[in-house]
């Protein structure tokens, strides 16, 4: 953990070398993510509610998923640019250092410019919190916290799987973006609106609904079981298949060479 902070510091130092670029990047991310929110606003300009959810409730949902996604983009950046790490030999360097591989990939690349989305999501959240009709008790606050953090974990798991494919193809696979960026875009609305099949898929295969739809029901008082409140914790389990998949890929890398 102490080492992680050192990595954190060196990443920050590197990026602060180019202050103008950093802030332009940050700003562009804020502006870009406005589109995500704007489309929700446009939708609600025509309809008063979507599948029983009001504007503020959808914005609450959207800001939580945006935060999760941006946390992952900042801290799991190494998996996003994984094809590059394999291509330029940086990955070989990790293999000759006495630390875990996943740890090194995570720690070596953080991109703080991607916090732009986070900043913007906070603004949306500030609007949604008082307007969503949620009575904010400690358990609701905990649920929201779990939604955001566990959501980041699920996205990280997706990034790891995305990276693992690179071991087999050496090129990145764009279809994974359907789940990562797609998850963020579609996750603006509670996943239930896309129908039962998709909801099942997002519950049992890629557990994005576990960190979004179910705890949201608890937040909004539509369900009050503890299960719904702690549901996001199941998302963490998603790291297990991701990890196994990565190990399989790594074994292949070491036996076929690069």
């Amino acid at each position: 953990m102490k080492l992680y902070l050192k990595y954190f510091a060196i990443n920050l130092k590197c990026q602060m070398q180019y202050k103008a670029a950093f802030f332009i990047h940050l700003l562009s991310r804020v502006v870009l993510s406005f589109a995500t929110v704007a489309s929700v606003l446009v939708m609600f300009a025509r309809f008063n509610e979507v599948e029983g959810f009001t504007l503020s409730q959808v914005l609450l949902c959207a800001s939580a998923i945006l935060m999760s996604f941006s946390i992952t983009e900042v801290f799991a950046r190494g998996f996003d640019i994984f094809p590059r790490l394999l291509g330029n030999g940086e990955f070989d360097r990790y293999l000759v250092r006495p630390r875990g591989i996943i740890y090194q990939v995570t720690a070596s690349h953080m991109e703080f410019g991607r916090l732009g989305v986070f900043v913007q999501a906070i603004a949306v959240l500030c609007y949604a919190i008082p307007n969503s009709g949620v009575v904010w008790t400690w358990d609701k606050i905990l649920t929201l916290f779990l939604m955001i953090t566990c959501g980041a974990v699920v996205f990280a798991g997706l990034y790891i799987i995305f990276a693992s494919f690179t071991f087999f193809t050496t090129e990145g696979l764009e279809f994974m973006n359907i789940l990562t960026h797609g998850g963020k875009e579609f996750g603006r609305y509670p996943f239930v609106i896309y129908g039962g099949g998709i909801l099942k898929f997002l519950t049992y295969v890629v557990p994005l609904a576990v960190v979004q739809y179910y705890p949201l029901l608890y937040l909004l008082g539509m369900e009050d079981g503890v299960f719904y409140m702690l549901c996001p914790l199941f998302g963490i389990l998603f790291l297990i298949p991701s990890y196994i998949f990565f190990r399989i890929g790594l074994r292949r890398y070491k036996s076929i060479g690069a």
Partner: protein
Amino acid sequence: MITLSGINKTFRVTKRQAGFAHAVKALFSREYEVIKALSDVNFTVGDGEMVGYIGPNGAGKSTTIKIMCGILTPDSGVCDINGRTPWRDRVAHVAQIGVVFGQRSQLWWDVPVVDSLELIRDIYKTDEATYRRNLDELTQLLDLGEILKTPARSLSLGQRMRCEIAASLIHSPRILFLDEPTIGLDAVSKIAVRQFIKRLNAQHGTTVILTTHDMQDIEALTQRILLIGKGRILLDGSLEELKKRSSERKTLVVKYSGSPPPLVTGMAISGEKDGRLVLELDPAIVRVNEGIAHLAAHCELQDVSVSDITAEEMVAALYKEYQI
């Protein structure tokens, strides 16, 4: 102690012909070509030895180094380094070795070098006292001083390579792998790097394995060379033995005025360089002093130089001999 025995390694490479039709075909069925990168590689390197690993591009040098570093797993064979198998015991193994890839950097590009070194210290869990001692020594020997405060991106290649070497030695490894450490360096930097490696080996008893295409590296550094070609170890011996093995021919470079001199048996013209005649002389047939005396008697000599075959020529001859 490094022992490799019966190491085999094959790579599967997709074969594809040029053209759009073939590209489409390749989407559905791919043809693979199996390339034997290493076949039955055996050698042993003792503690504190310094070994030059040579061979043409694509011969399998880097593959061997990568196996010894634990980056690659061979198809079959045994590799034992200080009692460990690199790819099975990666973390414990790599804590004991240092690796310099001449063509790649391990420094963080945008921060002063010393920041990178401190992070590397923490990655290897090197204690502060050892770090200080190593850093002081490296700073002095590699003349790092001011360079340490400069971001890696603004260093010259020679300065950067010195820092790369320092970064690989922070944790006092027992074995140092150098993959083309002098590539692209100017003469002064090359000599500095060589002197440092020599000293490291002499003073700390660090085992050094280095690959290079620069024969001067080999001449300056190593007693023992391993020659690899097409994935096989072809030769394992000292530089002196090799020199003896390849012919004893001497090269005479002669500058003269007037008409070209006649030659005696045992001498042959091998070329002309900057208006000088280059002659090959076989001392078994005609002695060097006799040869020069003969030349002097038949033309007006202005300058004569005699030299042994260079390591460069020797290796070129070896490559030719083994058809690699």
